């Protein structure tokens, strides 16, 4: 079976597999350009990695990653955590996202985005997560937010 370009283009009989889905999302569009990659997942969480790259820097003098790529990393990781908890792919859109920047990511280090879905309703999913660069107990950023199912329902 040929790989669809996006989960949104996948045929109805497409068997959803998180690691495969994450890898697919990371090959195209903004995620692909950023270099996001699948790291790990569990029943209600997904981890993606964001390798440091010179053109993703926000402050040229320090080499610190810009905050934009961190938002994209956490948007994708938390989005996928919803599908992890659903056990299937549900088309949805980010309603809101709040990101607290706790410290700067260390230049040169890969950032891991851990996204977790902690509540599903029929149409809204509630998510939270952290971004860290090696030690989950010393996060770079903390996020919370909500998604809305755009076609169909989560439950």
């Amino acid at each position, binding site marked *: 079976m040929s790989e669809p*370009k*996006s989960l*949104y*283009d996948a045929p109805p009989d497409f068997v959803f597999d998180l690691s495969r889905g994450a890898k697919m999302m990371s090959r*195209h*569009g*903004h*995620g*692909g*350009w950023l270099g996001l990659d699948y790291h790990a997942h569990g029943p209600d969480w997904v981890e993606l990695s964001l390798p440091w790259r*010179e*053109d*993703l*820097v*926000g*402050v*040229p003098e320090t080499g610190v*990653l*810009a*905050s*934009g*790529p961190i*938002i*994209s*990393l956490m*948007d*994708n990781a938390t989005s996928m955590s919803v599908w992890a908890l659903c056990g299937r792919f549900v*088309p949805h*859109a*980010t*309603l*809101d*996202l*709040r*990101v*607290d*920047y706790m410290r700067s990511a260390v230049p040169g280090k890969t950032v891991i985005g851990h996204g977790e879905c902690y509540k599903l309703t029929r149409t809204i999913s509630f998510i939270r997560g952290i971004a860290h660069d090696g030690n989950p107990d010393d996060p770079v950023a903390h996020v919370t937010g909500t998604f809305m199912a755009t076609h169909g329902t989560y439950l």
Partner: protein
Amino acid sequence: MMGIGIPPYSDAIGVVVDHEEDGRPVMAMDFGTQVMGRPGYLHGGAISGLMEMAAVAALRTELERRGEAMRLKPVNIQVEFMRGGTEQRTFAMGQVTRAGRRVALVNAEAWQEDRTRPIALAQMKFLLNPAE
């Protein structure tokens, strides 16, 4: 626009200063695969990146007007996505709500062909430190 250097990340996703409105910079970003999320739509992270740049530009402009040289440290951002961003040029402008001596609060808005129908809103908080 003077005093606003575009950082590598913003430059890479194609953020430019489009024009000025009431002395404040209006930023713009063209659609392309590097900023696409689900097929045919802008990625929320790219919209956020554009609004962050607009917020930083608005704050820098305001601090420059006051003659204050400050280093900005983002504390947090809250983004509301209201409409899907489609395959066209996106604009964003920041508005400084409050800039005190240590903290600044800036709102930003992103829109496409219709200025009165924003696609996203952001509120950003910065810590201000006097530059050496």
